[in-house]
């Protein structure tokens, strides 16, 4: 056993070499995208599939190698402040620099991004395999695989980047691919519109991201320029040179920034555009702007509206982009800059509340949706909300664990939904399915496992991650916001109950009971092995991932033995600074001792059982017998079914006024004021003046003489007055 452990903790390749090879992980799918996009039509369907799948597989193998390497204690990514342990990285030179600003092409894989690498390439590989079958009848296969490969490359850039601007390349890149893939079937204006809606909503978030980055630069420069006699801590010369070498937005620089901030939270900024503001306030604003960015990408209130519409894309896309990877970038971002977040309790509670309310609202909407993908989409929004609740209360590892487990079971659910649609003539409406258990056994089994996982039934992976978040929301207290946090915790727990209800509703309607009379085709058929294979693998992963949530790691810290879950322990090197800052600033009160986990486990059981039971009762017993819900519930159902009319409100409050405003502006300012009054007015005035002055040039010599005489006498009079004293 010892030997085995040692084997896995010894880097198979030289860590420095691994760092320098990181670009290959991105380059492979990028090359795949290029080949599929440019030559896909020429080389044919089978070759396109081969290129697309093997490029992601190659990336996956490289990622495995990297992941193995970063388990080695000797692996260290070089930074100006010494190395980052358990990481590999390399700097590939300047991207751009001007003035004092610089961005480098720097890549780094630590335990956080290493895990993401495996999820992206691993789940990505499975979904590529699945897609090869799913898209086997589509003429645009080459376009599809080009976009999908491009997406993988962008997502990998996002997680490998070692600075915010480079992360932003991936951040916008995934948004771009999402736009292309949602609108993949662009013949349908609805679908093209959904893509556009996704991109523009994302762009609103990106606006926040950009502002936050700019303010961070300004803050970093104010730290450097801080006079030596000003109160609070001062940055070292190393810091100044690191900012010059790596740029102010490199993560290593930001981490060092966070280290110097605790003493400055209540100090005023003395130089630059933020002069007069407290560092703490500035940091809160920056974090909230990042939250706006994350809300766009990870579909949180108020920007979640694009994700349900994004289901217009092919189902594998929904599984990969809108469930497993892209939508979790917001959580990844906050894990990356967690050291800054823990210095701002206000930002933390806002994030927790946004997360909790998104989770609850989305779950309530999911209650009544009919499209199986729509239900899963709202479920994704809801689960992402839970993750943000975790981020908000400082349980970064728990939120990240939920990212991983969610990637497995939600990808499995989406692919299952795709399999269901594939086998039922593209029928999406769960009320028009039914009885699929016998007709699609593999899809059924994997769907059921994943449903159990997302509901949080012990001992599946979803339980551990979700429970870790709720537990942290209950026991870790953000300083000064106890009341609000309790509210967030209650909302989170309610969400857990709702999740069980709507998931089992979908399950019972689609898989149990008799086949619906409105079904498109009389008998469903099970999908091919290329589709069911990934389903099985993902279902197995959804179960196996539970190991990460087991409290099996014991370690010594300050003379006390503490027990950590596998994931918490694994991510410890990533969150070291964060934990130091928490301990130092006490903005987050950690529980003194770990209480017994039995009570929460029991709670989870009860919640899952009661809500699942309720779903069983309503959809298997009550509705088949009575045919409809009691009347008093009908308005509520309608309200939920229409998604709380949020789209309509946005349309009425934002979009319509905006379009009207620009039309009015065009008519009034451009056409009338500038062109009409100013430009044509000038022309008119010139013409009129000319017309009037024309009468002065009559050619009448006597007239001219008279004017001359008059002017001369006038001059004479003036001269006389001037000369007289």
């Amino acid at each position, binding site marked *: 056993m010892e030997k085995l452990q040692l084997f896995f903790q010894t880097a198979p390749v030289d860590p420095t070499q691994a760092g320098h090879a990181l670009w290959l992980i991105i380059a492979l799918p990028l090359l795949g995208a290029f080949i599929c*996009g440019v030559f896909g039509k020429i080389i044919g369907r089978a070759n396109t599939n081969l290129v697309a799948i093997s490029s992601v597989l190659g990336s996956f193998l490289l990622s495995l190698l990297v992941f193995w390497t970063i388990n080695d204690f000797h692996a260290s990514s070089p930074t100006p402040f010494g190395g980052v342990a358990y990481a590999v990285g390399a700097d590939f030179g*300047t*991207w*751009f*620099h*001007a*003035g*004092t*600003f610089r961005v480098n092409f720097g890549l780094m894989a630590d335990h956080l991004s290493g895990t993401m690498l495996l999820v992206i390439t691993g789940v990505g590989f499975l979904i590529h395999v699945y897609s090869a079958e799913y898209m086997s009848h589509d003429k645009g296969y080459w376009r599809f695989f080009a976009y999908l490969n491009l997406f993988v490359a962008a997502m990998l850039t996002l997680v490998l980047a070692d600075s915010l*601007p480079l992360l*932003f*390349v991936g*951040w*916008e*890149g995934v948004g*771009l691919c999402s*736009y292309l893939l949602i*609108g993949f079937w*662009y*013949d*349908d*204006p609805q679908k*093209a*519109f959904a893509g*556009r809606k996704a*991109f*523009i909503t994302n*762009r*609103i978030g*990106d*606006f926040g991201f*950009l*502002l936050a980055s*700019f*303010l961070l*630069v*300004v803050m970093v*420069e104010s730290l450097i320029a801080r006079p030596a006699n000003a109160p609070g801590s001062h940055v070292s010369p190393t810091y100044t040179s690191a900012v010059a070498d790596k740029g102010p937005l490199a993560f290593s620089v930001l981490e060092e920034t966070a280290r110097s901030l605790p003493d400055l939270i209540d100090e005023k900024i003395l130089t*630059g*555009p*933020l002069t007069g503001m407290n560092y703490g306030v500035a940091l809160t604003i920056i974090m909230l702007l990042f939250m706006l960015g994350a809300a766009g990408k990870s579909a949180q209130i108020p920007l979640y509206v694009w994700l349900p519409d994004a289901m217009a894309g092919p189902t594998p896309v929904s599984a990969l982009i809108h469930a497993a990877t892209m939508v979790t970038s917001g959580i990844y971002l906050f894990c990356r800059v967690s050291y800054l977040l823990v210095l701002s309790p206000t930002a933390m509670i806002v994030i927790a509340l946004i997360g909790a309310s998104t989770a609850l609202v989305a779950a309530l909407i999911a209650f009544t949706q009919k499209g199986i993908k729509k239900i899963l989409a709202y479920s994704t929004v809801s689960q992402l909300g839970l993750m943000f609740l975790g981020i908000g209360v400082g349980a970064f590892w728990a939120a990240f664990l939920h990212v991983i487990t969610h990637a497995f079971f939600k990808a499995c659910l989406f692919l299952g939904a795709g399999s269901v649609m594939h086998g039922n003539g593209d029928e999406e409406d769960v009320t028009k399915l039914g009885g699929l258990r016998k007709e699609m056994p593999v899809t059924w089994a994997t769907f059921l496992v994943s449903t159990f996982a997302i509901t949080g039934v012990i001992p599946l992976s979803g339980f551990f991650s979700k429970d870790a978040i709720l537990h942290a929301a209950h026991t870790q207290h953000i300083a000064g916001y106890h009341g609000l946090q309790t509210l967030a915790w209650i909302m989170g727990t309610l969400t857990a109950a709702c999740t069980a209800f709507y998931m089992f509703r979908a399950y019972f309607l689609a898989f149990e009971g008799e086949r619906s009379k409105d079904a498109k085709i009389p008998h469903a058929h099970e999908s091919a092995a290329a589709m069911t294979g990934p389903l099985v693998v993902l279902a197995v992963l959804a179960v196996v991932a539970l190991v990460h949530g087991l409290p099996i790691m014991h370690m010594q810290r300050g003379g006390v033995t503490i027990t950590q879950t596998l994931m918490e322990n694994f991510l410890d090197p990533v969150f070291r600074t964060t934990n130091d800052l928490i301990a130092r600033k006490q903005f987050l009160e950690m529980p003194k001792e770990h209480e017994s986990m039995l009570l929460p486990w029991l709670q989870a059981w009860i919640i899952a059982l009661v809500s699942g039971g309720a779903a069983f009762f309503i959809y298997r017993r009550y509705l088949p017998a009575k045919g409809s819900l009691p009347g008093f519930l009908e308005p509520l159902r309608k309200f939920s079914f229409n998604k709380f009319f949020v789209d309509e409100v946005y349309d009425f409050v934002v979009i319509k006024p*905006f*379009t009207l*405003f*620009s*039309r009015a*502006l*065009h*008519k009034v*300012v*451009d056409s009338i*004021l*500038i*062109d009409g009054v*100013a*430009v044509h007015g000038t*022309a008119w005035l010139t013409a009129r003046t000319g017309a009037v002055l024309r009468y002065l040039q009559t050619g009448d010599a006597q007239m001219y003489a008279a004017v001359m005489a008059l002017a001369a006498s006038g001059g004479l009079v003036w001269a006389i007055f001037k000369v007289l004293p």
Partner: protein
Amino acid sequence: MNSIFDSRILNLVIFFPLAVAALVAFLPKDEKGQIRAVTFAGMIGSFLTTLWAWMRFETRSPVEFQLEYRLEWLSDVGISYHVGVDGLSVALVLLTGVLGPMVVLSSWNFVAERVKEFHVALLVLQTAMFGAFTSIDTMLFFMFFEAVLVPMYLLIGVWGSEERQKAAVKFFLYTMVGSVLMLLALFAVYFLSAPSGARSFDYSTMYNGMMGGSRELATYLKANPDGNGVGLTPVAFALFKYGPWLFLAFALAFAIKVPMFPLHTWLPDAHVQAPVAGSIVLAGVMLKLGTYGFWRFAVPFFPVAARQYQNFFAALSVIGIVYGALMCLAQRDIKKLIAYSSVSHLGFCMLGIFAFTAEGATGSAYQMLNHGVSTGALFLLFGMLYERRHARLMSDYGGIARVMPVFAAFFLIVTFSSIAVPGTNGFVGEFLVLLGTFKSNLPLAFGVIASTGVILGAAYMLWMVQKVFFGQVTHQENLALKDMDKRELAAALPFIVLIAVMGLRPQPFLDVLNTSTERYIARAKFAAGDGTSDERLVRVNVRQLPRVAVAQAPAPTPMPEGMVRPARPMMLQQLQPVKPALQPGDAKVLP
């Protein structure tokens, strides 16, 4: 390594297209293919000359104007033929050179009448633009600046669409108004910047002559913000009194050219009516004459006035960004939409120029190049569509991606560049401009509002893309549209390559631009009087005319006021009636 050619490269760059134009003028006018081929080859040759200039430009050199060439010409009135490039101008020259061949390709079939005249006009236009970007003598600049108008007026007025006459006249008058004021201001600077006898229209003389005055005025204003200027030296007093007006005269001329809000209404009309080639050159290069003018003349000549009006012009730029974007959302005509998007993009350039930070200025310069590439490409691509359908409204299209997939892919990539997706060229420029704005002394709100351009840009461009390319094909005649042919691919592919290269490897370009940025910032800021400018970068050093240098070297003694060295007796008499520069004390002495 200096080679003997270095000082001649720019002459080659400027006059090569003119020589080709002369050649084309002698070709038989019915040999349309021949005319096109010769012009195309000429444009390629011209591009190679600009590339040569670009390669010979040394970023590490301490010399500001490189590849300098100076020849005596009209020295009686202080004009010389003086050309040279700094980082910004060599980049703009290269941009002009790159666009040249593509412009010819774009109109291969589109222009079928008066083919010869059309191509001559294109080549002459090229010469005029090269000249404007490389002139160090302000009068020479002015001549080229005005010379650009004539071929462009003809391009719009002769080969344009239905209402071409109206648009061409509007374009011509709009720009002329500004030019006249600028000419007057140039004369004023001429008299102000040097005592009689030493006067010259050369950039260095004008700038260096006023530099001391600007510095003095800035120090003075810092000490007495509400002072009335008593006690200033004559130049400083003149700058105090008339500097803002002169600055505004320059600014007006260039703001019309850019165009800045609210002087932009000529642009949509001109673009809509112009032929494809006209649109590409207009958007790609000509608008940059405006931003270049601000950068080279308006701001360095009057740094104090520029500071005073910084908020005003930055505000107009921000309004331009948002307003241009909102206008796009109200358009139905695709060309108009692209034109208004230019207003928005050029707003970013202007904001960067008036942020007075290194990031902002470099970003602005880069954005000038980006806009040339992206918007040039948009007009080029739309031109292909227009050539097929002769329709400009979005409602005339729909579902084009189905019938022209390759074309759609190209258009989409250019769209992403235009909305500054990271990885494309647009991002680097926009990011730097916004960052520079945030770091500047402008109010934070400016940066925030300007950043909304990021959202609005995506909104209008993708809206247009959806209307044109997605959905079902709604018009029967669109079903038969042919996808891009080889010639069109050849014209569009370089743009795609540029978009990627400039997005992923921007640093070689930025290194060249940085050499200019440093000086621009130093010159804009030295007048702030806070001592942050690098003094070595403030002064303009150029090559002197050899003959003058020899004649003046032994006798540096100051001349008595009002006298001119009697080297040229003829000129002495002509110059005498001109009054010496205004002196503040003069008025009191007179009876």
